[in-house]
């Protein structure tokens, strides 16, 4: 069976800097994480996957279709959606409106419908609002539906971004540091939410994360990037103990299994 | 197709083009310097330019009515008028920046642009108001200085007037001084630093606000000088004549690479030449179907095409790195 999402040989250069060097990545289901020190190229990889950047080399396929050269909105329509490292909500729109925009790709209405508001329009709109409120319910923001996005507390904003991304009915969700700025408790809640999403909606989720506890607890698989290259991949536990991973994070000298005896 | 005619007028067209080009270059410098440090199109620069022309004409008219115009050596008069125009326009530019742009520095980019449009319109009518009250007329004519009309015949088909020479020499002087200022003085280095990276420049101890004001001063002064030269060259000015040359000079700035000072000079020359050729040859080549009136469309088309196909311009943009 073809993998849901398959990228191989991805290379991305910016001028003379090689941001990503021949990275392969495939995922099928469940929750996977990409980790790595700052500047490793994780967000760049996301940007390539979602069409913000075009790779200099390599191929990206989703459900058998090539994504290279497609615009971000086209990729979203195909079923891949993302959130952003620095929250990019539509600040002056309400929470429910943000989610409604997220559903744009799935709206089967045209200009004529918008101009004439036939009964079909009202039915579809009602359905959208219904679904929007369900998504907000899912992330626990139902009672803040009519709040303007920029007035929401930080944690709620992150969850709103998640709800908005879910609006496009993705099969694959890419979350860029979803727990950044959260307390351990909030992060844990979010992870529980993600697991429920996978269970209920059959989503595949790909996380970029720095919070190691979260990563280890929730991921089915972890991939490690450093300086634009994949240096390790596997089950969380395997990756945790990998020498190269430790080295990437902490530097060469600290790779030492036996503590030095104090003299 | 009268080839002899086409070739015959060629040198004159080139000369016209260079003349026009230098004028555009001087005005373009104002746009490009401001865009370099602020990434902002100073829409009101066209009025700062024509303001210089008005200051010049007022001085000349005053000299004329006091009887001094004929008595003073024309070089002295010229230098006086140009310097006055530069000073006035420069100060106007600084004032406009303080009043209408600085409060909007943090706003999304379109807001100060709209404000600049407002300033442009306001200045047009303020000049009109002043002149209506002062002289009961706002279509003013530059007093002739007879020496300007002396023509030298270079070849059988090419002659050049003292007036044109004056414009060319003055423009060259100004462009050269700007080049020295920007590249060989401390102030110039500061301006270039602020254009590259405002935050870093301020960390290096540069007073960014002061440098920005200075940039407006210098850019405005260049525009003012261009205004005086424009008045000398074309004689007739009114508060609304700044608009079209301003737009064309902006085209020249973009053509050369916005933010890029040599680019503005190059862009000005290229546009001037292109326009001169279009004006002279279009009607000849199309049998009168499309005449010289279309030269304005020509410049705008260049603008549109450049922005669509090569927004970096000929020499490349020099703009602030984004955060």
């Amino acid at each position: 069976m073809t993998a849901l999402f398959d990228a191989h040989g991805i290379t991305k250069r910016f001028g003379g800097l090689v941001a990503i060097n021949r990275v392969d990545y495939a995922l099928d289901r469940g929750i996977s994480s990409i980790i790595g020190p700052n500047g490793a190229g994780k967000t760049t990889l996301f940007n390539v996957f979602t069409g913000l950047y075009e790779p200099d080399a390599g191929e990206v396929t989703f459900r058998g279709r090539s994504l290279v050269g497609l615009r971000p909105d086209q990729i979203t329509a195909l079923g891949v959606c993302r959130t952003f490292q620095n929250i990019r909500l539509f600040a002056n729109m309400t929470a429910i409106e943000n989610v409604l925009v997220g559903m744009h790709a799935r709206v089967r209405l045209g200009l004529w419908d918008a101009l004439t508001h036939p009964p079909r329009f009202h039915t579809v709109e009602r359905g959208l609002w219904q679904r929007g409120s369900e998504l907000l319910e899912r992330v626990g923001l139902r009672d803040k539906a009519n709040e303007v996005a920029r007035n929401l507390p930080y944690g709620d904003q992150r969850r709103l971004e998640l709800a908005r991304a879910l609006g496009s009915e993705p099969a694959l969700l890419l979350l860029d540091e979803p727990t950044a700025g959260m307390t351990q408790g909030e992060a844990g809640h979010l992870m529980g939410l993600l697991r429920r999403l996978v269970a209920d909606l059959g989503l595949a989720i790909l996380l970029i994360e720095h919070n190691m506890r979260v990563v280890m607890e929730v991921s089915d698989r972890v991939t490690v990037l450093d300086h634009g290259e994949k240096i390790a991949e596997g089950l969380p536990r395997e990756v945790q103990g990998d020498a190269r991973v430790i080295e990437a994070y902490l530097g060469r000298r600290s790779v030492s299994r036996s503590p030095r005896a104090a003299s | 197709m009268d080839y002899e005619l086409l070739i015959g007028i060629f040198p004159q067209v080139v000369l016209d083009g260079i003349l026009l080009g230098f004028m555009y270059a001087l005005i373009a410098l104002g746009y490009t310097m401001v865009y370099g440090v602020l990434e902002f199109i100073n829409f009101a620069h066209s009025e700062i330019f024509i303001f210089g022309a008005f200051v010049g004409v007022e001085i000349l008219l005053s000299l004329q009515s006091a009887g001094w115009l004929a008595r003073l050596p024309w070089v002295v008069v010229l230098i006086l008028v140009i310097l006055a125009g530069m000073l006035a326009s420069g100060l106007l530019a600084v004032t406009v920046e303080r009043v209408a742009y600085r409060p909007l520095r943090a706003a999304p980019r379109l807001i100060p642009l709209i404000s600049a449009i407002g300033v442009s319109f306001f200045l047009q009518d303020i000049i009109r108001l002043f002149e209506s009250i002062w002289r009961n007329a706002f279509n003013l004519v530059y007093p002739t200085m007879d020496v300007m009309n002396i023509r030298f015949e270079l070849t059988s088909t090419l002659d050049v007037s003292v007036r044109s020479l004056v414009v060319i020499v003055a423009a060259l002087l100004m462009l050269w001084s700007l080049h020295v200022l920007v590249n060989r003085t401390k102030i110039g280095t500061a301006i270039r630093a602020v254009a590259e990276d405002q935050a870093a420049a301020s960390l290096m101890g540069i007073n960014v606000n002061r440098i920005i004001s200075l940039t407006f001063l210098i850019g405005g002064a260049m525009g003012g000088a261009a205004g005086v030269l424009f008045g000398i060259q074309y004689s007739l000015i009114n508060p609304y004549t700044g608009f079209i040359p301003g737009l064309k000079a902006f085209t020249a700035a973009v053509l050369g690479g916005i933010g890029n000072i040599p680019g503005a000079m190059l862009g000005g020359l290229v546009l001037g030449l292109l326009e001169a050729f279009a004006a002279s040859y279009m009607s000849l080549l199309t049998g009168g179907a499309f005449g010289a009136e279309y030269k304005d469309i020509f410049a705008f088309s260049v603008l549109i095409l450049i922005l669509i196909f090569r927004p970096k311009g000929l020499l490349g943009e020099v703009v602030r790195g984004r955060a």
Partner: protein
Amino acid sequence: MIHAMAAVAAVALSVALVDVFPRSILVFLAFQLSLLYVYVARIPPWLRTGLLGVALLVLMPLIGLRNGYYLEVATQVGIFAALALGLNIVVGLAGLLDLGYVAFFAVGAYSWAIVGSPHANLIFGGGFPLAPGWFYVFLFVGLAVAAIMGVLLGLPVLRLRGDYLAIVTLGFGEVIRVLANNLDKPINLTNGPKGITPIGRPPLPFGIPYSEGFYFLVLLIVVVVILVNRRLEDSHIGRAWEAMREDELAAQAMGVPLVRAKLLAFACGASFAGVMGVVFSAKQVFINPESFTFLESIGVLAMVILGGMGSIPGAVVGATVVTVLNLQVLKGFSLWLNELKNAGVTVLGYSLANLPTQLEPAKYERMVFGIILVLMMIFRPQGIFPARRRQRELAHTDKEPTVVVP
């Protein structure tokens, strides 16, 4: 209750005053202000609509009978209100600064002017002007032509960043103006600076005179335009536009096709201008390139900005204020000044008769626009009536989530 009585009283009183003082501009302004009051007052919607309806459908024409100029002003306000609403979609909703908007207005106007007058005979040899009834068809032709032009303009320029887009649209507007001025050869399309006249006027029902007829036609079109605006705003398209204005990158990532959305905004905005252009040329009977300059583009922009970007009532109010300022206040000031001059009034020892003849306040529209733009940007960029997303809210109880979609 008090508000309701006050609103009715305000309207009734001002109308009565107009009847008594038909020449007083201040009194007419008072009438307009009373309408504004009705709009913002806290009165039940049925009363608001009722009062405004009566005022616009009955009272205004009656005022027009007392002083025809006022009806003319009202019609002009309507024309510019439609233009402002169109630009409002482009600038206010989608966030695209179009500085050449008047070009669409010009295209609509010329489309009817050419075939509605004998001018087309110069091009086609005969058969023109078309029968006046064709005017109503050309309302749609003008709409279509302008919309197509909007798309054609948009295609190459929409990926430019904001300030460059503005300048390019400015250039485009200027190109249209120069073309209008010069397309009298090789084929005489526009008759150049001489303009086109006489342009045919549409047949009106019930034998209404033209000044009333155009007033009602303009009013009808404005109502339709407002309706269309509201519908678009409350649809996925309106939401996409707003999202695009907030954060283009995020909007695209959420599935909004940017180019298509921008083109749609351009086309919609352009189409309103196209329709009004057709009306304008029929109303004026004579058009020339002077009516379609950068000044007009900026004028419409000033209306949108003054009223509030993205706000429908804002656009209408902005159009009213700016048009009234130019047509009435400035002109009135000019007239008043002339009266004072002729009467030999002196101010502080200076005889006003000595004021320079070139000083005509009526000509200072640019200063008005300029001041409006600068002051609004610095002090109130959201406009007089800031856009407020209409109250479509999620209503819910704890037990059963229900959705209320008005």
